[in-house]
């Protein structure tokens, strides 16, 4: 490539602009600089569809079925967007150093060295500031979203406070090798192997295990919490979409780990009540 060997055109009459700005402006006039930036933009636009493709993958089985899942997808979407520019720039430099800046082949070390750039204050400062800002943005966004999700999943409410509001439903989730059972203590201990949820009503989960660690993952609802032996973990969700969804075990729990999964049925309130009446009448010993 002979592009680099071109001397940029003379700078116009110098002004009182600070030299650093001057430098940046001159730098932008260098052919390779422009090409790298153009390449960055191109690659950036090539990567842009990812933001939606990721969500498409996550929504295949009917997600989002809850506010929590919406928040999660929002986070994924935003993180993809903000990480595209920096990725595009790095890829652009890689590509341009292969096609743009000269290459030397051969068996002997090249006779002619490259420009000895030991550092570049402006570039380093730009990178540091931007990457720090980016990290800070991710942290802040994450903290806010986490607080929001914790609120939506009632994760801060302890077991004894829970039977508070009448509108709520408490479900005791028990993981054991290799089946899930769901107990509805407010309906005299009605127990089921399918997770039935009322639509648009907050549901508290108390989760524990009778043997090893399992992980209660309600995929389309975006609920995930370990079922630990000897401890009770809490979470919750408000399902806002009718349908059949999946519970999968997301922590290796022995031979039939792959088969430790079941259905979620999100029902209208009256359908839910009728299910309770049909199967829940008698007390479980």
């Amino acid at each position, binding site marked *: 490539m002979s592009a680099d060997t071109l001397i940029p055109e003379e700078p116009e009459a110098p002004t009182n602009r600070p030299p650093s700005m001057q430098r940046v402006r001159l730098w932008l006039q260098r052919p390779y600089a422009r090409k790298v930036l153009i390449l960055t933009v191109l690659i950036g636009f090539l990567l842009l569809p990812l933001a939606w493709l990721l969500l498409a993958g996550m929504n295949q089985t009917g997600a989002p079925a809850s506010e929590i899942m919406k928040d999660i997808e929002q986070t994924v979407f935003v993180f993809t967007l903000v990480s595209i520019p920096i990725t595009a720039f790095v890829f652009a430099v890689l590509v341009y150093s292969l096609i743009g800046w000269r290459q030397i082949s051969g068996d002997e070390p090249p006779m002619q060295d490259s420009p000895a750039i030991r550092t570049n204050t402006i570039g380093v400062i730009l990178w540091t500031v931007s990457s720090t800002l980016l990290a800070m943005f991710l942290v802040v966004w994450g*903290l806010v979203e986490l607080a929001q999700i914790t609120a939506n999943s009632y994760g801060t409410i302890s077991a004894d406070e829970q039977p508070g509001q009448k509108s709520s439903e408490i479900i005791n989730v028990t993981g054991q090798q290799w089946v899930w059972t769901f107990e509805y203590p407010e309906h005299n201990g009605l127990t089921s192997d399918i997770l039935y949820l009322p639509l648009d009503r907050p549901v508290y989960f108390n989760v524990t295990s009778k043997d090893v660690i399992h992980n209660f993952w309600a995929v389309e609802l975006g609920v995930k919490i370990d079922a630990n032996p000897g401890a009770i973990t809490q979470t919750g969700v408000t399902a806002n979409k009718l349908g059949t969804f999946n519970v999968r075990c997301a922590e290796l729990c022995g031979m039939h780990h792959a088969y430790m999964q079941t259905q979620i049925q999100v029902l209208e309130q009256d359908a839910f009540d009728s299910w309770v009446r049909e199967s829940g009448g008698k007390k479980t010993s």
Partner: protein
Amino acid sequence: MSVETAVETKTIFGSEVPQPPQHGAAGGVMRGLNFGTGLVGGIGLAAVAGWITAILTPSSASNASFAPMEPTYVYLAVLLGWVVGFMLGIGAFVGPLRWVVGRDVTHADAEYMAGKDLGRKRYWKYTTDHKVVGIQYLIVTMLLLGFAGLLAMLIRTELGMTWTSLFTPAFYNSMIGTHGIAMIIGMIVVVSGPLGNFIVPMMIGARDMAFPRLNALSLWLFVAAVPMLVSSMFMGGIQDGWSVYQPLASQAPVGMLGYQMTIIVFAISTAVASVNLMTTILTMRAKGMTWSRTPIFVYGIFAASIMGLYAFPFFQYSQILGLADRVFATSFFDPLNGGSVWLYENLFWLLGHPEVYVILIPSTAVALELMPVFLRKPLFSFNFAVAGIVGVVALSGLVWAHHMYMTGWAPAANYPFMLSTELISIPVGFLVLVAIGTFWRGTAWTRLPLMAVYAVIFNKMIGGVTGVYLSDVPADQYFHGSMFVVAHFHFMLMGAGLFGAMAGIAYFFPKMTGRFLDERTGSIGLWTAFVGFQITFISMFVAGLQGQPRRVLDFDDQFNLSNWISTIGAYVIGIGMLIFLSAIINSWRSGVIASSNPWGSKSLEWQTETPVPLENFPVLPVVTERPYNYGVPDPYEAELDSIDEDLTEKAGTK
């Protein structure tokens, strides 16, 4: 009190050195010992120990939950017998015993133990020369990685054949566990073992490591550890993933003992190696090699050693506790009797996360080390490279619980751990900046080592970005325990780690073997593996996004497509790696002879002649300039300066 009167002396580098009395021929008992006697000792003692234990244990012995204990005791005795016997047979205990009885090593002994005039035989002995140890590490690591790769192929085969199941779930689980831990162990040593031992002392201008015998000890402990891991496959296997979470691990067959013993021994080996490398780097740098003149690769190895030193004991103790639970019926991890599963997770991940950087930092450093040589320009912003490494080390110990976001052990702790985890992207970003800054306007001498660096940085970007999702609790609430995680850490550990190691091996091959790594075969292998790698793990990302949990051998039809593609890609990786291996074999046997400094590098290790003499430098070198002093003055800079000048003139005239 005086032992002997006439002190015979020996001339070492021109100075008369008094010698302790020489007992028998140089090397003493070590003359008769080698890998063969090690095997004999190990297998022999293992057999004896197992036999005696079998006699002593009543076959009806069982623990509180009716588990037959005889196999446990016998297998444990066999493993212990193997380790002790092997180290005994190869002569690891000779040095300490000589120290106790006060028969100090003479110069002649030392030279024999360093493998002087032993030819090929020295590679089969308890040799103290750091170059021999480096080669030995290279071979053992490649064997281990090959074993783990074989398991990877079987795993992908099982997952790819969605219409049938090849293996039973139990065997599948033990495969993924063994594959995971074997790869992790292999990747931990793949750079700091071969290159750290062979290159670092020469790079800092030293004649050997600080503690040559410890050097051999760390290697042979590693060698003793690996067969125990393999043996566990035949004892029911490790059916619990590489992290062997308790209490699931206490349900596994006796094969679990193989895992636990492997980790316990390997942790000692790592600690010994770390102490050795750190002491060498801190005290044995050549005259004039200030910290600003120390190559970045040395920084990388030093950082890995720090993390290995403080992190591995936690892993070791987590396994010692698990072993006690199984053998002595203690209840550290048994929730029925007051044990806590979170205790195990914390102990494990206290190692588990620094260990990731133990793998990543050296391979990144080796990439940064070779880039200036092939781009003929200095490393961009050396200080930022150092800052990046320091930052990663500083944060590495504060992020472990991001593996435990979803365990519910302390929901409030998710906030600080998310903070620390996402902060680590800043120092990692520094390393990326250094890399692309070095590429910037560089004339690429496009030889295999440099080309591999392109692959490393590409994979590292993908792994890094996907890591950002996982470091964020809300997103992790979906991705935790899914295939997405598997794809992510393969991009980091394999995409960045292994390809970086391949770059380093290709770069240092001429110095280690005296021959070039065959460029064409090597490149074909590398790029085949690279393409296969992208196919495999990008489609694995898709499976994760769709919601496939990890460590499952049967899954919903919706995941079939991505798993088929992933399996095809895995086979491509396998072929590529085999081609690269064949390049190594070819070149080692009949490669083109390389000059002592074929890349025209300016750093010390290339200034010695090849093959490197026993004491690397006849005269210790003196460092007078910064590393990476390549490059010509930047034409643009000169021009800019002139502009500045007339700008200031203008300002003056105003």
